């Protein structure tokens, strides 16, 4: 990626930064924007696995949920430093991800997906059916985290800017990663993992590393969630949430990073809009998704290509 920050990217970031000061941005819309960016960033982290490495994780909700619980547990006990929450989330998610990625990456394809799913279900079941962390109610009513001293992230606008910074840093990290030596190997693994071994790459180590990175980015996103919602519940790690993450990546466009961000935001907004009109919103969402998969197989970002833009998928 030789080009510097393109003017389009600058426009997008400026618009995102200016969003809260727009006249129609109520608190409700700000929180919606928070969700859109948060899930966009998580879909982007998952894209490292699905789009770049060709590994479909069906258990990312567990990384997200564990990050949220790690944060909520500290906040509930009066440890309100944001940094402590993030650090603790990294530890908890990192430990869990180490186990999951070690075992899952020994298998390929559908078996990898199933292993990640099963691990995630174990975590879900633990939080759902033991009372240690509130059972099905989860941890409710936690105070907002503090950035420094008495500066609490307690308004929708502060939360929004926090998640915007997270998205920006996560995007930067992912962008550097996929254009590095490491990123090139990931693409080679996606294309032909057996051949990559015969070129001297310890494929399993690369897979484990990218799983860890993706899991940690997702867990950090999760750690920001209780600050916005004041809760962490087992529902955050339900397998349907993992499925939604995959759908977000698909809608946005595999292997593009920016695509899944758009996909995640689109999914959140679509769900919110449709569900405010009808109860059976999932049918509508399903139809939209089927349409996208059938007629825009390269995702929302594929439109750029139709308009004469760049190639849709990372070439390496």
């Amino acid at each position, binding site marked *: 990626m030789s080009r510097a920050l393109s003017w389009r990217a600058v426009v997008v970031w400026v618009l995102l930064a200016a969003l809260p000061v727009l006249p129609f941005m109520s608190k409700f819309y700000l929180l919606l924007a928070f969700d859109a960016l948060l899930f966009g960033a998580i879909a982007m982290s998952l894209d490292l696995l699905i789009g770049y490495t060709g590994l479909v994780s069906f258990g990312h909700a567990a990384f997200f949920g564990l990050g949220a619980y790690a944060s909520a547990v500290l906040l509930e006990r009066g440890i309100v430093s944001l940094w402590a929450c993030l650090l603790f989330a990294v530890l908890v998610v990192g430990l869990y991800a180490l186990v999951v990625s070690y075992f899952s990456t020994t298998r390929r394809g559908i078996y990898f997906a199933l292993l990640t799913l099963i691990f995630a279900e174990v975590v879900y079941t633990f939080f759902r059916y033991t009372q240690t962390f509130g059972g099905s109610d989860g941890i409710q009513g936690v105070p907002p985290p503090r950035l420094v001293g008495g500066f609490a992230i307690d308004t929708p606008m502060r939360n929004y800017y926090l998640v915007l910074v997270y998205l920006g840093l996560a995007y930067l990290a992912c962008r550097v990663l996929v254009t590095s030596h490491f990123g090139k190997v990931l*693409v080679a693994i996606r294309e032909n993992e057996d051949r990559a071994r*015969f*070129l001297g790459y310890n494929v399993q180590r690369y897979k484990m590393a990218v799983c860890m990175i993706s899991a940690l980015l997702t867990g950090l996103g999760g750690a920001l969630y209780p600050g916005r919602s004041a809760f962490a519940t087992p529902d955050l790690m339900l397998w349907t949430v993992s499925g939604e993450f995959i759908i977000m990546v698909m809608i946005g466009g595999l292997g593009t990073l920016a695509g899944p961000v758009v996909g995640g935001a689109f999914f959140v907004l679509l769900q919110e809009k449709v569900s405010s009109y009808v109860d059976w919103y999932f049918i509508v969402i399903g139809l939209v998704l089927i349409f996208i998969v059938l007629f825009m197989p390269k995702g929302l970002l594929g439109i750029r290509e139709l308009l004469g833009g760049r190639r849709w998928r990372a070439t390496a």
Partner: protein
Amino acid sequence: MARDGVVLEVDTVSKSFGALAALSNVSLVVQAGQIFSVIGPNGAGKSTLFNVVSGLHVPTTGRVRFRDRDIAGLAPETINRLGVAKTFQITNIFPEISVFENVRVAAQSRVRESGRLPSLWRLPDVEAAAADLLRAFGLAAKRDEMAENLSHGEQRYLEICLALATEPTLLLLDEPTAGMTPGETKEATALIRQIASARGLTVLLIEHDMSVVMGISDRIAVLHFGEKIAEGAPEEIRSDPKVVEAYLGPPED
């Protein structure tokens, strides 16, 4: 057993799959700088021999030594890092990335950062090495093409480029001219010979096309039903009655 100039020593290697003995007590010694060919009819055990040397199979008995190091049973990536690169009989490239990116990912396997932390953010510059290889195989003009869009012959060349980019000492070529026209085969054979000598490579070659082997090899071993039935210089092999019999069937009286 170590001797100067021996790059590869296959020592009484057997490999069976269940009741099937794919290789029985095969031994051969490949000297530095040699082009050593292994020939034999289909099913003779040639590819099994390669898979044992390159780390895909663990031999049932026997030893494989590469430059005085026992490599039998090591993982393919470890063997590659020691300096053994393999090409595949069925083209085995990275289909949906560009020709250049194919070679790049192979070449960057040998840079200092490879497998270390800085590889997460650094992109080593392997442009020169990759461009040299592409030029040598006449692929320079195709560098931005998607690999899967190359012609069959070009994909066979890319296959060899990938192996060479990992800077091997020993190159294992599994039927490099498979599926090529006679004209392409001739050209490829000459090219392999030329590149091997220019880079000081030792080559172990599998072929069933006799015309390829005779023109290129310093030494030839013949496998038949998993056993080595002959070894020698090309002209010795050509006139060996056992070899003729294995290829053409027993003489009719």
